[in-house]
């Protein structure tokens, strides 16, 4: 099929990392194409309410535009091979040719299974936030925010500002670890945390507390909570429950890039992956927060443009950000008790309805997939793969094209590419 777009450098993902990478590379005089499945740039954090972008995203967008970056929204990279990328959009499919590829695909929430987690109105924490930003009316709704990580406080503050009745913030990490994590925050982050806490004044924050089960008939009605030996129930309309983030590394896996132990795309000091001409920036390489994301984006952009000398002033800042995030995340690591929540009858794979008990007996992810079809459905294991990794330590390295359910037409048109299967999974 004809190549529709070509650039010296193609950047996948228009969040903080991708915007910074594209702007930096273009400022070095390269022809840069920046694409994202969303219609507007900004990624996860710079997504404003009701289809607009925030001031930060607008600043970066302008910088990218001034440097001559070509922006293409509404395009999802569904398959890739050396020098080529298959993009699906509303009107069909196109191929983009690249000389250097920068993956800035970000991260998604880590969702862990517990009885009832598939009931309607049980959402991710960032998930419920995204839905409210997309227009979900949350005023006066009773919401429980639970799981782990700095996102919980941000989500609780946001929901409350939107008029929700946030009943409780339940952080699974023990109080001692939460306090230690707070004490070691850099001053700017500590101030931010303090502001978020003030914005959630009056909402109890319980450390060492987690959701044991969600209950209801057709949708969520109540949540069963546990803290130490205490167990109780709480009636609510929505559960916003997430356990931090996990990298979107599928595109990199497809291209043969090596992964880190934390399932991110492995990179060297200049954000270069194990595969020549492929770079990775932001949270696709590892979870480290927004500032590390855009700094690593700048580094990747300069390095991919062959101007490594420009990265010198950025490296130390990026490293500091990454180290401080890693320390924080180690302290908030999910506790062992969470593994015991998933019962044999609890769903593991939502797409194919495979239970934890059905998948557990297998030696690894590959065998479980072949025997039970878990991870073979529409989401291609994005949710259950990360859960299986947490439950049983399985390595989830099974991205296969297309990495997202593509239309039959996309696949047919892409057929000449050797790595493209024609299996459709929706």
């Amino acid at each position, binding site marked *: 099929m004809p190549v529709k777009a070509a650039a010296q450098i193609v950047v996948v993902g228009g969040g903080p990392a991708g915007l910074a990478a594209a702007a930096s590379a273009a400022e070095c005089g390269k022809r840069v194409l920046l694409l994202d499945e969303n219609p507007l740039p900004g990624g996860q954090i710079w997504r404003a309410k009701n289809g607009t972008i925030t001031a930060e995203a607008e600043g970066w967008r302008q910088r990218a535009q001034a440097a001559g970056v070509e922006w293409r929204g509404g395009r999802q990279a569904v398959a890739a091979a050396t020098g080529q990328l298959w993009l699906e959009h509303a009107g069909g499919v196109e191929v983009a040719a690249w000389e250097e590829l920068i993956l800035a695909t970000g991260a998604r929430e880590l969702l862990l299974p517990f009885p009832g987690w598939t009931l309607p*109105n049980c959402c991710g924490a*960032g998930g419920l936030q995204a*839905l409210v930003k997309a227009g*979900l*009316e949350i005023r006066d709704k009773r919401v429980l925010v639970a799981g782990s990580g700095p996102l919980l406080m941000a989500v609780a503050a946001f929901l409350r500002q939107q008029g929700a009745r946030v009943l409780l913030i339940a952080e699974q990490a023990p109080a001692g670890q939460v306090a230690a994590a707070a004490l070691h925050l850099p001053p700017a982050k500590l101030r931010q945390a303090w502001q978020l806490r003030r914005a959630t004044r009056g909402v109890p924050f319980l450390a060492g507390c987690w959701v044991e089960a969600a209950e209801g008939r057709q*949708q969520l009605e109540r949540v069963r909570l546990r803290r130490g030996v205490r167990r109780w129930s709480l009636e609510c309309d929505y559960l916003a429950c997430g356990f931090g983030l996990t990298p979107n590394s599928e595109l990199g896996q497809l291209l043969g890039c090596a992964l880190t132990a934390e399932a991110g795309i492995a990179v060297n000091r200049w954000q270069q992956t194990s595969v020549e001409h492929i770079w990775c920036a932001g949270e696709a390489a590892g979870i480290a927060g927004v500032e590390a994301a855009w700094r690593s984006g700048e580094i990747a952009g300069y390095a991919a443009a062959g101007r490594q000398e420009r990265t010198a002033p950025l490296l130390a800042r990026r490293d500091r950000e990454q180290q401080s995030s890693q320390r924080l995340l180690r302290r908030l690591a999910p506790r062992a008790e969470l593994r015991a929540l998933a019962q044999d009858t609890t769903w593991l794979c939502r797409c194919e309805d495979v239970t934890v008990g059905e998948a557990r007996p297998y030696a690894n992810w590959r065998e479980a997939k072949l025997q039970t079809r878990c991870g073979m459905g529409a*989401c291609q294991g*994005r949710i259950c793969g990360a859960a299986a990794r947490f439950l049983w330590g399985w390595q989830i390295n099974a991205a296969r094209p297309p990495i997202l359910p593509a239309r039959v037409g996309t696949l047919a048109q892409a057929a000449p590419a050797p790595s493209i299967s024609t299996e459709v999974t929706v």
Partner: protein
Amino acid sequence: MPERVRVKVNGRELEMPAEASVAAALMSAGVSGLRRSRTGEPRGPVCGMGVCMECRVRVDGRAHQRACQFSCREGMEIECR
């Protein structure tokens, strides 16, 4: 007042805000189960960002459309179960 559009949800006419995603609009209207799982359980939006696939509905005859990924349009026919 945000602009509103009329859509049909399982044949029933509903008014929805034009800029809201279909997933958000359906949830706001009290429709929490957007699809049935393989074993027939109701499922609804989880991630709000196109990843979990739990929000799939039929739109204007096209199956498996992620309701969190597009907005309501006048006259749109949505089928969910």
